[in-house]
């Protein structure tokens, strides 16, 4: 049999009543795909809210309580940065990667790695270090989603802010997380951390 024959045979098969089963499977696959995909994205949305994050007491009793005292929870303009704003990338592929990495948190929940304040504080340095590393590597991308250096008005900032932003940030020598560690939570023991 030749190739052309083969193709023709298949087309004919699709047109014949015998192919109903295949059509059915294709249809199911297609619909299922939509539902799965939609569901997947909905799941992504749902897990990208503050309510979801603090549904675990590990997150609520420690980091959330600390964050409530900071500028990103309450400020003069009433604009808030929520957990995913700082911790989950906005862009799709980066988001998926972060989400997959975060599945270890479920394991951590099950094994109770940080289920008491003492354990949380004991583990805080290594968690913080992972976040610092992530932010350092992506040039504090999540901060920059809201804070854009281009639009910072130096005449509105304090002298100390201007000095540091002009010298080290403007030149690209440092990134936000180099100087603004502990912006939302209590810091771990900072012994040996650069600049502390």
């Amino acid at each position, binding site marked *: 049999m030749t190739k052309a024959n083969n193709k023709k045979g298949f087309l004919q098969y699709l047109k014949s009543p015998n192919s109903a089963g295949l059509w059915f499977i294709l249809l199911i696959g297609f619909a299922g795909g939509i539902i799965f995909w939609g569901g997947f994205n909905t799941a992504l949305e749902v897990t990208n809210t503050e309510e979801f994050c603090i549904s675990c007491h590990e997150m609520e009793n420690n980091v959330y309580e600390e964050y409530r005292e*900071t500028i990103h929870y309450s400020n003069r303009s009433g604009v808030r940065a929520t957990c995913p704003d700082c911790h989950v990338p906005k862009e799709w592929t980066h988001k998926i990667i972060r989400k997959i990495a975060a599945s270890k948190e479920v394991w951590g929940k099950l094994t109770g790695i940080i289920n008491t304040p003492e354990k949380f504080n004991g583990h805080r340095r290594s968690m913080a270090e992972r976040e610092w590393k992530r932010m350092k590597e992506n040039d504090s991308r999540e901060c920059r989603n809201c804070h854009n250096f281009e639009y910072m008005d130096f005449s509105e900032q*304090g002298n*100390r802010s201007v000095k540091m932003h002009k010298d080290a940030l403007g030149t690209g020598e440092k990134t936000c997380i180099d100087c603004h560690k502990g912006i939302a939570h209590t*810091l771990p023991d*900072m012994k040996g951390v650069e600049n502390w």
Partner: protein
Amino acid sequence: MKRLSYVVMVLGLACTTTLHAQEVNSGGVESLRGTATLDETKKAETMKRVIKDKNPIARNYVHQPPMVPHQTRGYRVDLNSNKCLTCHGWKYAAETGATKVSLTHFETRDGKTLSDVSPRRYFCSQCHVTQADAKPLVDNTFEPVESLGNE
């Protein structure tokens, strides 16, 4: 003897009750709360703002801890970290433009000099405080030392 102490006690009690009765009416004497009496609630003052950044504030006497000329909201000083030292520590002062802590901050109570900030000088805001733009609550006649550059 026992009788005498009874008398003293009763007299003391009487005194405090009469004093107490008098306090309700301030008799025109003004305190920091104005002429308000103890049993009335005065309207709260509006909150004063701490100035974000300004030049160092002149000192009034030798060995005065200088006042903090900038905001310190959110600066944590605890066992784990000391935000003030990330600018005022000797390592970082040049880069941040902050005044270095003076060497007295390395001395212990009995005059030994340590290799880092002494525990008694670790909690900076115990001695250094921020300033708001507020009028003094009461007049005072304190004269700053001339040599420190105050007029």
